[in-house]
């Protein structure tokens, strides 16, 4: 085992099978203490299954799970000092808000008065003190969500598991709750493991993100690393918007790869370790990493025609059909508009990018 103090949850080669179906393929992960860690992936990728394995609602088929150095994968849920905020909140409908929050403390063996007192403090933390005697059904979705959070935090778990807790809230409330969750995590110092399918939410809140798909880990890293240096096509496509171009690696020199798009177009980008000359790979170029001009103005300029300009508030998205035949999306921030003129639909335009803008993907 590694140092007990800095790894909160260690998952070693965890496999989960349901009959013939394998939901998780040998997942290994270390989640640090005090970290806001996110499991991100589309529905059915196994992220919730992994969370349920940590909580103890499902048993691992193979592998081990450690909580601060102690193996927990064979313990029942009530013996694991992790608490869960459920997607549908699962607030006990026959109990008042205060009774809900005090439940975990009571089950830990605290006296009723102590449990109630601590539950009251938790309700203060989530600013719901005045609703202590209401039933959950009398509260709004956002309030219920905060009750669920208070209930899960009240027994001071070592790790808090959050199963898409914000998915039922409307956009404005969700944004506010994202900040509040992040704030509470920092204040309490409890490790949060957060499950979501919303990449924007993951990027906003997380210290680190594990991107999952088809029951396997695709990439693990800080939000910025995952966004800027995706390992493979799935990650590049799932996190943010991107343009994917199919290229052939022609030459590698000084850490740069020359990638040929077609007979008359090629592009230089940083080579990733696994790349070999002659490989047929995909390039990912983020829309905001390119600049649209009427004249070619960089080393790497590609000529095309503007197909569509879409106004989306903060940005303008322009779709350009390149001479190579592929369509590419370029995003221009609205604050740049003073200096850069929008090129009208049907006019020629040049798409300019730096060497570092494009990223070669491993598969």
């Amino acid at each position, binding site marked *: 085992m590694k140092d007990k103090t800095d790894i909160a949850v260690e998952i070693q080669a965890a496999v989960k099978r349901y009959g013939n179906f394998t939901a998780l393929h040998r997942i290994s992960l270390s989640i640090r203490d005090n970290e806001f860690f996110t499991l991100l992936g589309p529905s059915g990728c196994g992220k919730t299954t992994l969370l349920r394995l940590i909580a*103890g*609602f499902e048993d691992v088929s193979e592998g081990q799970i450690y909580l601060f150095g102690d193996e927990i994968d064979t313990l*029942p849920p009530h013996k694991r000092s992790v608490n*869960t905020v*459920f997607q*549908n909140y*699962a607030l*006990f409908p026959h109990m008042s808000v205060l009774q809900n929050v005090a439940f975990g403390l009571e089950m830990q063996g605290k006296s009723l008065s102590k449990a109630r007192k601590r539950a009251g403090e938790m309700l203060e933390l989530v600013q719901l003190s005045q609703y202590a005697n209401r039933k959950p059904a009398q509260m709004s979705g956002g309030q219920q969500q905060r009750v669920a959070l208070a209930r899960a935090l009240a027994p001071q778990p070592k790790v808090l598991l959050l199963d898409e807790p914000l998915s039922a809230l409307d956009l404005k409330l969700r944004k506010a709750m994202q900040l509040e969750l992040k704030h509470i995590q920092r204040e309490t110092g409890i490790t949060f493991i957060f499950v979501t399918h919303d990449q924007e939410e993951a990027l906003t809140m997380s210290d680190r993100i594990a991107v999952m798909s088809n029951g396997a880990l695709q990439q693990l890293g800080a939000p910025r690393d995952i966004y800027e240096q995706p390992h493979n096509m799935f990650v590049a496509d799932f996190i943010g918007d991107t343009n994917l171009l199919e290229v052939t690696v022609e030459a590698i020199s000084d850490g740069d790869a020359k990638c040929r798009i077609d007979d008359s177009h090629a592009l230089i980008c940083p080579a990733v370790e696994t790349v070999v000359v002659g490989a047929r790979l995909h390039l990912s170029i983020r829309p905001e990493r390119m600049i649209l001009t009427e004249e070619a103005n960089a080393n790497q300029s590609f000529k095309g025609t503007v197909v569509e300009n879409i106004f989306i508030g903060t940005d303008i998205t322009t779709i350009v059909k390149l001479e190579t035949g592929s369509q590419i999306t370029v995003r221009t921030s609205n604050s740049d508009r003073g200096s850069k003129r929008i090129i009208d639909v049907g006019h020629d335009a040049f798409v300019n990018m730096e060497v570092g803008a494009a990223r070669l993907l491993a598969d």
Partner: protein
Amino acid sequence: MNPTTDVKTYSGFRLATIFCMVILYAPLIVVTIYSFNASNSITVWKGLSFRWYVDVFIGPESTKFKQAAFNSFSIAFIAGTLATCIATAAATAIVRGGQYRLRTPSLGLITLPIMVPEIVLAVATLIFFNSIGFTRGYLTILIAHTAFCIPFAYLPIQARMQGIEDSFEHAAMDLYATRSQAFRRILLPLMLPGIISGFLLAFIVSLDDFIITNFVKGAGIETLPTAIFGSVKQGLKPNIMAISTMLLCLSIVMVTISYFISKWDKTK
């Protein structure tokens, strides 16, 4: 609702409804009215009187009826309680036991007695008690009633339980409750309206039963239905109508309670 598919627009709908209601309720109304008859005859009306109600409690047959009523209510209460406990356990196992192989057959086996003709059950129960040499009496009635009340208690409990998501129990166990604490503190209170409905149904079914009771009861022990039947065989008297009206009122009260309990929502 679409006016062309609304059943109320069908010709003869009103007539058919009235006809059915009359068939269903006319006998009950007649019995109720004639229980207040001052006459000795069951068919000739001689004015309003409570004499037959008084007769039930202090008349020549009152001892017999009081004993029968005591037997009926105590059996209904005990058998209903036992059947409800067993049905609660069965519903928990079948709804929460996951996908085990005999799940569908066990569900079928529990509810089958409702479909089986009662006379068959009665004969089978009698043969059973005879073959094990059990002396017929109060206990045989109680055992038989407990057995056939189980499916009636089971159905409302199962219906209620299917509406309770298992995430509540998961949340309880996540919050350090053991399996039995999660059951007692979370599942049981949520199931309670179903359990009470199940008990009331079992109670009324037991109270009302004649065929099985008549087969398994020993000599000299009567429940209300068998006592009424015995009395009727010696000639129909208005006191029977008074008893019937009281039983009818009890049924109405219990059905009403059962209805409000099923609507009862502790979450508000």
